[in-house]
């Protein structure tokens, strides 16, 4: 069982969504529906599974339905049809009271424009999830303080949000989401409103936190680099349809259609491909009868661009090792050049 299962979800915005639903199910496009009925298709038959402990990134252009999708998971939006299962519970079956309990203990959320309470201090903001649960002030403040420290905002706990910079505000948002200690974290374009430098910093911080906490994160972005950096799996939305789901390498190497291909066209492959992904196993390497000469050792988790300069200087065979120094495989020049070549839609490379 996956942590989150989304099954055939349709969402139509407008006066009479259920009347328009059959048209959408018969395959009318978003534009046709808008023209004929004045309804907007938010999601069109989206199904996906998100596993425990992974970071699932949902990507797409603005208006493709990303925010709509993520709001279905905690039922801020009700689907027109379809089911959402979280840990096997159908979210649609929850009554008012259980839905509130579910939101309190199962998932937390980070927002694009931070969604902080302007009339509450940083500490009160971070403790809000605990406040609505009815936790005692002392306990609440203790946990809030811990999380404020975890995101590096000590000393600012008595400030108000609009006294802080954007990056700091989103840290408050992050700390607020961490404070309720839920398994699932929903992040709707959490870093999109930040400057590039601060964004990189926040991404690093999230990765660090994630290695420690192992939460299930659903992360939304319109930025490919961000999704490649953070995602274990990436789902790509176009006009409310899920056009491809796969690992970052899948997406780069085998874009499912032109829309995805356009997305990955300009990506710097050396920055996103890790050594272990393209290496040949020792057996394959021997079978091909490649000569070992001038060996360079690299870690299996290194990105290509970390050892590329070395290889360029002297022709060499690259030996891929794990953290303990065991040999995991080899990368030849041929493999390397293939990995760095741009592929078209349904490109040649199969991983």
């Amino acid at each position, binding site marked *: 069982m996956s942590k989150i299962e989304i099954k055939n979800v349709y969402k139509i915005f407008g006066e009479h969504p259920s009347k328009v639903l059959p048209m959408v199910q018969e395959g009318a496009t978003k534009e046709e529906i808008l023209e004929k009925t004045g309804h907007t298709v938010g999601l069109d038959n989206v199904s996906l599974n998100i596993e425990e402990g992974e970071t699932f990134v949902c990507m797409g252009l603005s208006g493709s339905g990303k925010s709509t999708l993520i709001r279905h998971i905690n039922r*801020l939006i009700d689907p027109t049809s379809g089911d959402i299962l979280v840990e096997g519970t159908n979210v649609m079956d929850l009554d008012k009271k259980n839905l509130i309990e*579910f939101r*309190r203990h199962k998932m937390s959320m980070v*927002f694009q424009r931070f969604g*902080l309470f302007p009339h509450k201090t940083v500490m009160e903001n971070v403790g809000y999830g605990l406040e609505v649960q009815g936790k005692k002030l002392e306990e609440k403040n203790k946990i809030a303080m811990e999380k404020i420290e975890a995101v590096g905002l000590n000393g600012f706990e008595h400030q*108000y949000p*609009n006294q802080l*910079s954007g990056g700091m505000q989103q840290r408050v948002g992050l700390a607020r989401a961490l404070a309720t200690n839920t398994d699932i974290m929903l992040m709707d374009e959490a870093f999109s409103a930040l400057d590039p430098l601060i964004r990189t910093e926040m991404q690093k911080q999230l990765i660090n936190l994630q290695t420690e906490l192992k939460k299930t994160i659903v992360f939304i972005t319109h930025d490919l680099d961000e999704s490649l950096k953070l995602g274990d799996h990436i789902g790509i939305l176009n006009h409310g349809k899920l056009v491809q789901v796969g690992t970052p390498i899948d997406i780069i190497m085998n874009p499912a259609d032109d829309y995805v291909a356009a997305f990955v066209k300009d990506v710097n492959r050396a920055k996103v491909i890790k050594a272990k992904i393209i290496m040949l196993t020792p057996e394959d390497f021997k079978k091909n009868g490649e000569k070992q000469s001038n060996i360079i050792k690299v870690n299996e988790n290194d990105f290509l661009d970390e050892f590329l300069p070395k290889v360029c200087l002297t022709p060499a065979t690259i030996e891929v090792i794990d953290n303990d120094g065991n040999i995991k495989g080899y990368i030849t020049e041929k493999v390397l050049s293939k990995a760095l070549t741009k592929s078209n839609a349904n490109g040649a490379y199969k991983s």
Partner: protein
Amino acid sequence: MNKYKTYLKYFIYSAIFVYVIIISYRSARPRYKPEHYTDIFKDFSWLNDWPKWLDFPLMQPINSGFDWLISKYGLFFDGINNFLLGIYTSMRNSIVDLPWPLVIAMVITITYFASGKKIQTTVLVAFCTFFLGFLSPRYWDKCIMTTCIVVIGMLLCIIIGIPVGIAMARNKKVRNALLPVLDLMQTIPSFCYLIPGILLFGLGAVPAIIAIFVYAVPPLIRLTDLGIRLVDKEVIEASEAFGASKKQTLWGVQIPLALPNIMQGINQCTMMSLAMVVIASMIGTRGIGDEVLLGLQQLNVGMATEAGIAIVLLAIIFDRITQSYGEKLQERTQPKKKINF
């Protein structure tokens, strides 16, 4: 299906229209209408001037309805009357009995704390209060009466207006139902409800309080509604996403963030109450308004002006106190200074 429904609607509307016309024809006096209704279709002279039989009979039903209301629910209105009058008289008497310096001291204390210890506002309000009596000793007690009426009217507005505003913001149907009522309350000339007010509550302070309510509550309701709906959607979503109930979101997020707007509504409410209390003097409500009226009746420009100034001073006092209290709240919820980092 949908088209069919619209046609049905049109049909019902036209049926009602025809029915109303028939009623007006039938209830018209015999000497106003042609001998037989078929004459209408033979002789078209009635198209020149508006025919007397084409007159919807609204006056009589309203009159008889009003009579029915008084005879049936007289006790109910008496109850309201006694209740409001009781509050008014006890409040007025207790303030009138106080020595005037004490009253000024009270006003100063209230202003000082309501404005967040702003000296400037406090001094201004203190001077205005002093000048009320200074203009004419007669005015002192009359201003107290006017103040009492305004304060009670405002409290009534706040107690009823704010919850109604909240209900409007949260429910589209309630809003759609209430908006035309608010429009009506704001556009209907005040004498149209001052006179029935006298019939229901007698002369004096109570019809004035009711008139204040009708006249001054719409802006408060509108601003409360607007304030709550203007709260950033993402902030509301954040509150809900963390599992806040509707009530927790309302009290913890929406109302605090709508407070500046609500305070603006209360401020508007005060100003309109004061305007109404002057008009109400024409139906015999005692207060500073009757000085203006007296001045006008005697063509005594000086007297009317003096009383007019007193009303302006009273308005300044009310405005400064409510406004500065709103500003204080706003500062707490939206601190201005930014830390450079």
